[in-house]
């Protein structure tokens, strides 16, 4: 049993899951915004990074790690809400290109702002978990207290978001807005608030993902830390279907495992090309995404 659990394949799968939860969270963040406002938030990674820097910046004011971690969530919410109100809102109903370009501009702007304030050097976060792997029968096991923390943090957040959508009145309103904004408005849902709220939730999910990335061994906070997770997170969301939160999470974890296998058996440089290949294949075979239903396009 120990030999099996420490085998190369199981190790790759478990380490892949650790990476995959981050990708899944990014994908979930993209889906939340896409469902609500039909905008693909290219700035998600940068907004999340800024929120993580703000939250973790409190460490230098002798705020405890857990407080900093939790405070990243409201920071993400504020940034997400502000983005929606200031940049995205004037662009509803404009050509599809405009919000895309604006979000790309925001990505560039925020990455530069983070670099201007905190410099581009990597900052380690003092996570109160050991990165030393457990051993089983004298052989190293794939997981460490740190990676269990990373998985649990992502899982708790995903479950909380799921519960919000599934069991609360607010979640119902959010789902109704995403599904049929006009009808929801007639029934008394404050649609415009729901759109802002969708952005706030999405960016807080992103912020947690950014902290989890930065917490990893041999990584840390850098302005561009979320570029690669964003690229793969987008691919995962697109393959899973931009309308399906579950698809985004499952797709994210799957891509994390694939990433780990490619890194281990082939080469780390091939991770993105392989992911792109899967995306192209998936979109050619099932353009609407693996987990969502096809929708007729209006003519």
């Amino acid at each position, binding site marked *: 049993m120990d030999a099996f659990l420490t085998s190369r394949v199981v190790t790759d799968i478990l380490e892949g899951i650790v990476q995959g939860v981050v990708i899944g969270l990014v994908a979930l963040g993209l889906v939340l915004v*896409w469902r609500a406002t039909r*905008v*693909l938030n*290219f700035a998600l990674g940068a907004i999340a990074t800024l929120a993580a820097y703000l939250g973790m910046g409190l460490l230098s004011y002798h705020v405890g790690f857990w407080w900093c971690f939790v405070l990243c969530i409201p920071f993400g919410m504020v940034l997400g809400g502000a983005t929606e109100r200031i*940049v995205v809102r*004037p*662009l509803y109903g*404009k*050509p*599809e*290109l*405009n919000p*895309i*370009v*604006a979000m*790309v*501009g*925001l*990505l*560039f*702007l*925020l*990455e*530069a*702002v983070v*670099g*201007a*304030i*905190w*410099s*581009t050097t990597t900052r380690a976060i003092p996570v109160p978990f050991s990165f030393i792997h457990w051993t089983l029968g004298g052989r190293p096991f794939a997981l460490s207290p740190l990676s269990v923390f990373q998985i649990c943090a992502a899982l708790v957040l995903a479950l909380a978001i799921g519960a919000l959508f599934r069991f609360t009145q607010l979640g119902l309103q959010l789902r109704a807005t995403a599904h049929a904004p006009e009808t929801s408005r007639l029934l008394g849902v404050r649609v415009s608030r729901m759109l802002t709220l969708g952005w706030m939730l999405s960016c807080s999910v992103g912020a947690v993902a950014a902290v989890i990335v930065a917490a990893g061994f041999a990584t840390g906070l850098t302005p561009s830390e979320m*570029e*690669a997770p964003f*690229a*793969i997170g*987008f*691919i995962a969301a*697109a393959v899973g279907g*931009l309308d399906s939160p579950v698809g985004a999470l499952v797709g994210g974890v799957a891509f994390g495992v694939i990433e780990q296998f490619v890194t281990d058996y082939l*080469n*780390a*440089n*091939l*991770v*993105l*090309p392989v*992911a*792109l290949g899967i*995306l*192209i294949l998936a*979109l*050619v075979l099932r*353009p609407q995404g693996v987990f969502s239903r096809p929708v007729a396009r209006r*003519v």
Partner: protein
Amino acid sequence: MKALASLRTERPLLWRAVATIVLVGIALVVSDQVSALTDYYLADAAAMSIVMVGLSFLTGLSGQVSLGHGAFMGVGAYTAAIWAVHHAHTPIVANLALATVVGALVGLLVGLPATRLRGPYLAGMTIAIAVAFTSIISEFGSWTNGDQGLALPTPVAPPRWLVQYLHSTPKAGRPGNMWLADIAIVTAGIAFFFMANLFRSRTGRAMRLVRENEVAAEIAGVSLPRARVLAFVVAAACAGLGGGLTTMVAGSVAPSSFELGLSIEILTLLVIGGIGTLSGALIGGLLYAYSSSWITSLVNATGLKPTSNLAASLDGIIFGGLLIIFVLLAPLGLVGTARLVVARRLRASRTSEARARPSTTT
């Protein structure tokens, strides 16, 4: 003046040829007079405006977003560099043609799946290509020399036609290869002439229709996949050519020049110039060439330490901020907005004339 106007409407091809030759001639004369540094900027601007005119066609006309144009440029740049390293005596024109063809092939490769993708999906795929490009370059380290990049061998003498027809010779007190700027300007002239015709051609009109209304385009007999792929191929060929040119002008190539930032910078300056127009691409190219020196002088003027974090991130703040401001306030860019203002003025003066007339007759 009137003769020119009628030439423009009645013999558009001739008009474009004349306009191109005049503009290229002016640029060549200017390039002959200015300092070596300005000459380098002109060459850079010429190369970059070719990249941008391709993107202007792809995004402005056919309505497909590419956030990975820096990668297409990198393909052309590396093609030209690798070929030049292995075959130093290849004529420059042949090498540029090779960069264009390889760029077009990569465009075909990316364009084929792109026919199934729209808007944000396509943008996401191309941004992933831009992020992946540097790691792909490292993967082929034996050809590309990894992170160190490649230095091109000193270019051979200027092609004979350039000396013969443009009397372009090494200028006194200048680096010996400044004729490269002349090559860049002439190449840009040819590329713009070709693109100007394409913008106004049957294909260009079909692209516009595809962007505005896919169903109407299909009813009118336009094949959507073919139009989409063609736009990608043309844009990538332009990017390959421009990338090849920048490499030759700079004399070296490294993966760090082709990170995601380049793609965003290209898009930003094109949006500022005016996406979907030729002159917007030209303005974008000039802005690109001068932007870094302007930012440096801005840093000096404000008394910022050049090594400070803010000075290092200033380009991102300016480009990102400008992109957002232009999309929100002037999405048509400088050229598009200027055209809009002129058109409004004309209409306003016409209506006021029309209003004035009945009152005088009665």
